[in-house]
């Protein structure tokens, strides 16, 4: 069978067009000279320049980045801890329940997660702002981190930790000096994943953001309701770029790590 039959090529083109055409149009129009979004009037980067003058957007961008950095870091710490305990604790009663509960927020509708967090924050009287968004994003990003890290930990050779203990490490030292450096690629890609998730989250953020702090996706969403401006296109293009870089580097890091692991294992098997 020919690999590039006309059928395959058509299917491929259609599939990718479906996925990426809207984004490509958005990116192209972000360089449009005209203020009218639908009319092409020549190439220009003026909307990017204008964007840099827009105080409200810049503030929102700053909030978004702060939230993403803090929440992904917190989520990485908590998610790694959760993964470690669930993988290491062995069989205890209720283990399935616990691991199920860690992964449940992955499939939980975001609206529900957002709403329940909103109710919680109101209940404990926490003013909505950067802190509440950070907490909310930590909550849902943590599950993703824990999935990524635990899949690495499952294949982690337990005897390495035992060897560390055997050589005089306390359990914490064994984790810090042996386990963590070895699973670091998974932890880093977990962090990148959490970072990008936080960056483009709209639903949960709109539940938990307050008037004092608005994230970029919220800002864009509300601006679009007043009509799409080329400025928004420019902003979205920047976000697409950031997310793309994040996702690609996350997958590159984990791919490289698994390649390296494979190599090491093959080398070990040969021995």
């Amino acid at each position, binding site marked *: 069978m020919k690999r590039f039959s006309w059928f395959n090529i058509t299917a491929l083109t259609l599939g990718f067009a479906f996925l990426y055409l809207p984004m490509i149009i958005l990116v192209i129009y972000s360089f449009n000279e005209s203020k009218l979004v639908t009319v092409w009037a020549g190439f220009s980067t003026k909307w990017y320049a204008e964007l840099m003058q827009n105080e409200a957007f810049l503030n929102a961008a700053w909030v978004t980045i702060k939230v993403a950095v803090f929440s992904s870091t917190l989520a990485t710490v908590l998610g790694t801890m959760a993964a470690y305990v669930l993988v290491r604790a062995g069989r205890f009663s209720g283990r399935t329940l616990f691991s199920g509960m860690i992964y449940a927020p992955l499939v939980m509708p975001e609206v529900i997660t957002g709403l329940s967090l909103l109710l919680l924050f109101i209940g404990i009287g926490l003013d909505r702002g950067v802190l509440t968004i950070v907490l909310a994003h930590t909550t849902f990003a943590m599950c993703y981190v824990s999935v990524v890290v635990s899949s690495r930990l499952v294949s982690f*050779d337990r*005897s*390495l930790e*035992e*060897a*560390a*203990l*055997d*050589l*005089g*490490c*306390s359990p914490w*030292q064994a984790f810090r*000096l*042996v386990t963590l*450096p*070895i699973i670091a690629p998974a932890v880093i890609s977990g962090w990148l994943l959490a970072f990008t998730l936080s960056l483009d989250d709209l639903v949960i953020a709109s539940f938990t953001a307050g008037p004092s702090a608005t994230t970029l996706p919220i800002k864009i969403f509300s601006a679009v309701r007043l009509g799409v401006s080329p400025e928004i296109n420019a902003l979205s293009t920047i976000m697409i770029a950031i997310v793309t870089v994040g996702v690609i580097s996350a997958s590159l890091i984990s791919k490289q790590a698994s390649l390296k692991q494979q*190599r*090491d294992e093959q*080398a*070990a098997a*040969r*021995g």
Partner: protein
Amino acid sequence: MAQQPVFAPWDDPTQTPLITFQNVTKRFGDFVAIDDLTQHIYEREFFALLGPSGCGKTTMMRMLGGFETPSEGKISISGRDMNKVPPNKRAVNMMFQSYALFPHLSIYENIAFGLRRTDMDKDAIDARVAEMLKLTRLEKFARRKPHQISGGQRQRVALARSLAKAPKLLLLDEPLGALDKKLRQDTQFELMDIQEKTGTTFVIVTHDQEEAMTVASRVAVMDEGRIIQVATPDAIYEAPNSTYVADFIGDVNIIEGKATRKGDKTHIAWAEGQPDIIGSTTRDFSEGQTCHFAIRPEKVAISPDKPDAPNALHGKILDIAYLGNISTYHVELPTGHIIKAQTANTRRLARRSLTWEDDVWVSFTDTAGVLLDR
């Protein structure tokens, strides 16, 4: 094998053992992995654990290392109860069967790892690591990562790492399993050499009985969580306490019969119409008790004519296994028993007089075999 001054602390009641297993039982759920085991191991011993897969050897080691706790009973090292002592607080190092080298650290750092956990200063650590590298002939590889060296070298790194802290007790779980025969023999001698130099006590698990015989001061043969016999390699070979041990260590012919004491000899009636086998034993057998006569193939002679020996049985050659330095003849007796006889091939193949289907006599002296009650 001539040993220099006899090393036998287990025979000396004034010696206190380094390791004591006191009625140790280990269960995993309902499964009993170690069954009421009591055993002493002495300082400077090279104690080998031998037994079929799943008999509990690794479990025993892991309990010594502190990775498992006994379900019942007590393990003490130097008289101190170890049940509550975590692995990092024990003067015990384990060389893992999988080596468990840290993949993110260089060979040098792997060996230094344990030393860095002590309050040793940097120069002393450097000196010690250099010494270990020299001992295991790894100087050239110090800067490499574990995946950049060969399997045999990796095994030596694991050994160096476990030796670096000069533990009182070193546990080796099938340390040479992955090596080819030549490298394995070299390393066996290396191990014995290290043991001689450092005075460390070794407990070694092995599947390879030849290895156990070569390196061990005592061999323990295990089965299903119990130690069946503990003895020096020659004693366990020459005087097994059961057919299980006789069969597990080396090749053996086992003939079942009924024992009768006649003077200082024991006669074994083993088949209708066949002369009794005459053996000698220090064990007490009651009149007519069922017993097993075990004799190693190399103690059975084979000849075309009836020899003048206390025991001579007539049969036919069924099979010949030529192993280079020796040949094993499988001789079928009229009773259906098959007796293995081994001879050294001092003559060239072409001149051997015995061949398939030949009528032959197998013979042995009255002290060549052992009489076992189980």
